[in-house]
């Protein structure tokens, strides 16, 4: 049953050094506040799983928290490269980073298989793709009915998944709408699921019955963090801060500038600071 907790406690209770953890969100609803809380608590040796690592993994890798990254697109979407991740892969700074690289199709299937309790995912993929040569976790199976050779990858089963959602009701059921991405699968694939939400409402009685809902008994902890996806966005609440994504490219390009930015904007801040960051981005519609 979901427990409502302050974010600092939800993170402390559910994340451990050495865990395999997914902070998921496919461009939309990225759990930035949860990631920053994990950074403040200084976890180490994490295996970070995510389709599109994005800024929060660039930050966690740059802060030396990651032992390994499992991903399918290590870019700043629409802007370019992730410069802290590059520094780790190209120069071993701040330390070497093991990578397990997939395609989006593989990761999406692997999360779905994890949510379905399967050991692996099977799909038609990686044909002619060289990732299959460099990643030993990309293998193949032959369909017992048709003989077709299909790709197989291990399912993703994180110790804990963090996601951000629009709202929870007082019972702790969680609603996600808009670009729903991979969050439902990532939450159900994990042993523990921690959700940050924009707000808590009394009930979901007047909502469309098919909106994505995680029932309270499938969620471990919920923390209310308005603005907690910034600079990503929460559909219906505030827009994507594209300028911040462009700015990150310059911040992350320089090791010292990165450290100074992290100190000022993450280490010395708290989850309560997110609401003010989206004030100018609230929907005008």
């Amino acid at each position, binding site marked *: 049953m979901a427990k409502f907790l302050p974010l600092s406690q939800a993170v402390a209770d559910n994340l451990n050094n050495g865990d395999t953890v997914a902070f998921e969100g496919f461009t939309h609803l990225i759990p930035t506040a949860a990631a920053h809380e994990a950074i403040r608590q200084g976890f180490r040796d994490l295996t970070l799983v995510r389709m599109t690592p994005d800024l929060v993994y660039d930050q966690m890798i740059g802060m030396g928290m990651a032992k390994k990254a499992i*991903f399918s697109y290590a870019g700043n979407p629409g802007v370019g490269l992730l410069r802290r991740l590059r520094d780790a892969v190209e120069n071993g700074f701040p330390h070497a980073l093991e990578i397990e690289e997939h395609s989006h199709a593989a990761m999406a299937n692997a999360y779905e298989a994890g949510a379905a309790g399967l050991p692996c995912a099977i799909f038609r993929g990686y044909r002619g793709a060289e990732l299959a040569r460099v990643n030993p976790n990309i293998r193949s199976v032959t369909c017992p009915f048709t003989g077709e050779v299909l790709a197989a990858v291990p399912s993703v089963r994180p110790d804990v998944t963090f996601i951000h959602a629009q709202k929870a009701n007082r019972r702790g059921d969680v609603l996600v709408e808009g670009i*729903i991405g991979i969050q439902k699968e990532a939450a159900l694939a994990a042993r523990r699921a921690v959700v940050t939400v924009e707000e808590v409402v009394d009930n979901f009685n007047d909502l469309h019955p098919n909106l994505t809902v995680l029932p309270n008994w499938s969620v471990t902890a919920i923390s209310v963090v308005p603005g907690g996806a910034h600079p990503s966005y929460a559909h219906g609440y505030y827009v994507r801060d594209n300028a911040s994504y462009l700015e990150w490219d310059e911040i992350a390009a320089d090791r010292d500038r990165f450290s100074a930015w992290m100190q000022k904007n993450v280490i010395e801040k708290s989850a309560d600071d997110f609401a003010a960051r989206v004030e100018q981005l609230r929907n005008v519609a």
Partner: protein
Amino acid sequence: MNELGFTPNEMMTIAASRALKGDDVCFVGIGAPSAACNVARLTHAPDITLIYESGTIGTAPDVLPLSIGDGELCDTAVTTVSVPEMFRYWLQGGRISIGFLGAAQLDKFGNINTTVIGDYAHPRTRLPGGGGAPEIATSSKEIYITMAQTKRGMVEKIDFYTSFGHGDGGDHRQRLGIDTKGPTLLITDLALWKPDPVTKEFTVVSLHPGVARDKVQETCGWTVKFADTLEETPAPTELELKTLRDLKARTDAAHKGVALSAKRGSRDG
């Protein structure tokens, strides 16, 4: 801007937009493909179905998205599905007619590298990687590629096969059991290229206005083959140019945030 009144990049985007038809279901890569697909939608192909990998199907953005998951794509879409559904039912299920991709590195058989420059384990430059492209390249019925020509980008041998085109050429796709057509069109800032029917090597079939053969060769890392009868790409029309420039202006304003409070309904500034 050349003396013809448009830039090579504008010609590239507009030439690419013309290749799309109203009944196409197009899986759109970010960047140059996204601009071309939306110019097509705003000019001759209003009914085209544009799909972005974030799960937005039939989207009609007013400004070009910065990322594949900007809120504008969802707001204007016919429907938005989860990422696994996108890749399983819609792409792997064979419902995409055109996959439209860009490339960091491309070879003459349409193989694409967006993963690393140099060795994979010890790269000189670590690029973002494949994202959706490896399966878009093999599950879409056919593939269009668009990129500006440079010797660094168009190379004899790519450093990593992120997304499979025609492999070593000829029937390489069929030999791997891939039954889709693969790359059928390459649109650069200088020319239109199509694969040779037998060897599958990209061959220049049309030069953009004011472009000489030498210029195409100078900006390409392999020895360029030209078709026997070479056409000239029609120059952009006034409508095409205005549509593209208005779209870019709206996009630039939105991404800098200045249009934020003025734009009703946009969820990504």
